[in-house]
């Protein structure tokens, strides 16, 4: 997530104080990415150093920040460039399932199902918020909520896939065991059959 570019985007609408930027950022993203105020001031300091914003002290002695032309240029470049996909995003859930399988220390199907229930609950919450957002006509907020919905959906579909693979593995293990049993019975039955014809 680019705090730097988000702050530039907020400043492109007009000059603001550091604390105001923090509040606006969190309002726009619904607290999905909480920012601490220190992070905001550090980023603003770097932006000032790089000539992307200027700061003036107002009558109350507070710094008010304003975007510069290079800042607008950087913002335009951000909007014009697709977001790179992380090659290996660190996904706790994927790691948890991999180790559940490898270690044999947990019932993987149960882990999958618990996660699915949690994901559905989160989605129910987001869907309720979407209904409100739809009613109030807040499209930017709706897009943000849609993003969360589709991320959750992707996770759930992956869980479906995990479960299906586990089920298939179970079926083939069962089948192999039954074949082995039948084969053993066959070997045991064959001499008996020979005996009966004697």
């Amino acid at each position, binding site marked *: 997530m680019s705090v730097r570019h988000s702050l530039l985007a907020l400043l492109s609408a007009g000059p603001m104080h550091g604390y105001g930027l923090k509040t606006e950022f969190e309002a726009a993203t619904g607290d999905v990415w909480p920012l601490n105020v220190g992070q905001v001031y550090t980023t603003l300091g770097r932006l000032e150093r790089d000539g992307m914003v200027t700061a003036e002290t107002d009558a109350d002695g507070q710094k008010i920040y304003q975007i510069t032309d290079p800042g607008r240029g950087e913002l335009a470049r951000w909007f014009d460039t697709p977001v790179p996909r992380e090659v290996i995003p660190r996904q706790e859930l994927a790691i948890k399932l991999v180790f559940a399988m490898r270690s044999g220390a947990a019932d993987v199907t149960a882990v999958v*199902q618990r996660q699915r229930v949690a994901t*559905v609950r989160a989605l129910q919450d987001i869907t309720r918020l979407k209904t409100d957002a739809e009613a109030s006509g807040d499209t930017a907020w709706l897009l943000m909520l849609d993003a969360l*919905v589709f991320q959750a959906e992707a996770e759930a579909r992956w869980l479906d896939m995990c479960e299906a693979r586990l089920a298939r593995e179970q079926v083939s293990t069962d089948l192999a065991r039954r074949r082995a049993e039948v084969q053993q019975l066959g070997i045991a039955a064959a001499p008996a059959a020979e005996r009966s014809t004697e």
Partner: protein
Amino acid sequence: MTVLDIDHAGRVFGSGHLRVVALDGVTLQVGPGEFVAVMGPSGSGKSTLLRLAGGLDRPTSGRVLLAGRDLAPLDEAGLAEARRRQVGFLFQEANLLPTLTAAENVALALELDGVRPKAAMAGARGLLESLGLLAAAGARFPAQLSGGEQQRVAIARAVAGGRSLLLADEPTGALDVLTGETVMGLLRQRCDSGCAVVLATHNIRHAAWADRVVFLSGGRLSGETGPPPGPGCLLETGRTR
């Protein structure tokens, strides 16, 4: 009173080595105005459960009660009557009668309930309007409507005459993402006006519209989310509006 009461219902198809257990002792109760989603992969028993719930099929064990009435003693005619009075169905395809206009498709359901043709037409138009379809669309034939509009007509037909239970089997499967979302919103609205809805889906995004999500796996209930938590959503805190 519960609108739908499925009590340890099972459904077995075939016998001997061809025996398939489609549903195994499933219990589910749905109250008025409640929206329940049934989730599970293909072959988990979702559609079988919906068919039992709507009296389109009979359980091989357990019971199904519609508005407190056990469906088991009813003959085929009685079952059809119970279905017509209480249950609306919604499928992936709208299945409208192609030679009737949208409004006539809905009015027909009301006329079968004994409503006079003129009043049925007026009722149909009102219902279509409540689902966001204007009078002009009501006068069109199904082939002249978009997929989303056809599905709205199908919803109107399914809830016409104040049917208390709406059974929906993947109703958005043939629609684009945003239209599908609109249809889910309409189902939610029907619930909020007192109709019970049971939705079978493998899509978690659609299931999230429900008050309660139950999971089916291999014909058995394998979990549920329980009723929705009260206010205090994970995203609401601190958001300034």
